[in-house]
């Protein structure tokens, strides 16, 4: 093969790839303090209007209150994820945050390699016996899903509700388990239609499949759908909009994605938890291990106030709030397996 004409093309590709790598950007406030925080985003990166953005919001808030310095990295693949963490580690950052379950394995190795830095992983799915400089942050998603499950059952007129999962993994099955338990709590005879978009990470960004799954559940009679499927969920909203069905958002308040369609959302307070970890670390109170945030700790919640919850009947809000109290007090245990 004659290489000469290929060379400029390769150079172009290389240049494009380099711009995509998005080298850790400097966004440090002018005041330089001792604590430096590095944050590595999950696939999707900033602007995903989901938990990457939530983590960023928590970071900014903590930076403002604690006067810490921070840098960001937006990796595009697995190698970059680990590379970005190692980069922060080799530069002696005090706290390095990995946003997403996908960091679970790499972050343990990187934490061992850089014992002087501290690490935190959101949605940590690894071994609970973490290295002494790593804290795994878990959410009891099933508790939040339980609340919206109860809400879905109260709002359903057909007594059929649907669950659309993204990738079929333990994390998403927890949402399903909680949702099922919530529906059963309010309406033991209701029918639950549950389906997953796939078994690879692609399943979190396939709105075409999301719409198809939602359409088939709606055809089976479901009139309230809950999704835990990332971008795939926009297809669920789209199917719901076309058929005047109602849907429940996930991770954050998704009302703006489809006003009038989104009944409520199950909210994961990644911002609160990220802020808390940074504040603790900057005060020298870092605690390793795995920590779990549920309804009681304010880690998960549901949207039930203000204009974004206007579609909910007052009786639904009252009933679910009672259940929330019982979950928070520990009187009601929500199963994490379907």
């Amino acid at each position, binding site marked *: 093969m004659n290489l000469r004409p290929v060379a400029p093309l390769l150079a172009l590709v290389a240049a494009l790839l380099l711009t995509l790598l998005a080298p850790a950007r400097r966004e440090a406030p002018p005041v330089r303090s001792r604590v430096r925080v590095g944050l590595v985003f999950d696939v999707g990166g900033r602007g*995903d209007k989901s938990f990457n953005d939530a983590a960023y919001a928590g970071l900014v808030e903590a930076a403002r209150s604690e006067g810490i310095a921070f840098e960001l990295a937006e990796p595009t693949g697995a190698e970059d994820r680990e590379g970005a963490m190692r980069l922060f580690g080799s530069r002696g950052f005090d706290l390095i945050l990995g946003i997403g379950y996908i960091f679970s394995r790499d972050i343990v190795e990187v934490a061992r390699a850089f014992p002087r830095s501290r690490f935190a992983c959101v949605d940590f799915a690894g071994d609970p016996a973490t290295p002494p400089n790593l804290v795994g942050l878990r959410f009891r998603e099933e508790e939040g899903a339980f609340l919206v499950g109860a809400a879905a059952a109260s709002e359903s007129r057909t007594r059929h509700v649907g669950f659309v999962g993204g990738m079929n993994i333990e994390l998403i099955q927890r949402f399903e388990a909680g949702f099922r338990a919530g529906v059963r709590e309010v309406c033991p005879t209701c029918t639950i239609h549950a389906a997953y978009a*796939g078994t690879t990470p692609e399943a979190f960004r396939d709105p075409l499949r999301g719409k198809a799954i939602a359409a088939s559940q709606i055809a089976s009679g479901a009139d309230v759908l809950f999704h835990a499927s990332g971008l795939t969920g926009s297809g669920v909203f789209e199917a719901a909009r076309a058929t005047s069905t109602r849907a429940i958002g996930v991770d954050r308040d998704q009302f703006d994605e489809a006003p009038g369609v989104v009944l409520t959302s199950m909210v994961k307070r990644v911002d609160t938890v990220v802020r808390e970890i940074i504040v603790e670390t900057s005060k020298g109170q870092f605690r390793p291990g795995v920590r779990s945030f549920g309804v009681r700790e304010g880690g998960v919640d549901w949207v039930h106030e203000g204009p974004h919850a206007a579609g909910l009947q007052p009786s639904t809000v009252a009933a679910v709030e009672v259940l929330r109290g019982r979950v928070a007090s520990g009187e009601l245990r929500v199963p994490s397996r379907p």
Partner: protein
Amino acid sequence: MSGRIETLLAEAIRMAVPYMACGLGAVLTERAGVVNIGLEGALGVSGLCAAVGAISTGSGVVGLGAGVLGGGAYCLLHGVLVVRARVDAMVSGIALTMAAYGGGRVALRLLYDSASNSPRVPGLEGLDSRSALLRVVSEPALLGFAAGAVVLVTVLLRTRLGLRLRACGDDEGAAAAAGVEVGRTRLWASALSGAACGLGGVHMVFDQHQFDAGMTGGRGFLALAAAILGRHRPGATLAACAGFAGLEAAQITFQDQLRLAPELIRVMPFVATLGLLAWAGRGMALARGRLWR
């Protein structure tokens, strides 16, 4: 239950459009003798162009035009690189796919300050019917694709232009000797192939009312498999695409009854393609001209 069957059919048709559009694109470019494995990128680029066009003007028609032009321009670029600059078709195809994927994310960030998706796209609405099938079938983007497909297949099989196009792929030496300008023919074949993919990208975005980075989900690659399965004949390729979409829709609809691993179903198109290649591969390589009508 009949509602469920109707929905299954409607979803199969809806999901078939991106496959069919890219399958047709693959047929057009391959039959002219330009291998293009970057059709996945064409799907994404045209989807993005359709979204940008429709959002910035508020007009679905402009979006449709922008999507078709964007897909055409993308594949024409591939054609220029391969035909004129003599870049290896595999290298160009891979490079352009990667550039399309990365470029899509960069464009989303620059235009809409988001890493993942565009704002709501004002598409072209079909009938507001209670019937799922009628809703899907009456979508202007789907009708546009159907019309485009009929035109392109007719051009390919029934016109002098199509004959020249096929001659370039079957035997470029003979075509050149007969007075066909092989290079130029291949360029417009590439552009047409991109426009075909573009109709799929437009449908995808108008159907979702949104462009998401990565929403193509490998459908352009699967369409290449369909084109091989259909031996680059338009009818058979479109049928293979419909089969893939039907399989996908069936897996989704009967997921809770069917206790079959979803991986198994997703891998079936590839197994079928590989099986066909193993069974008939040697003959296909030797007798391209004879196998293609």
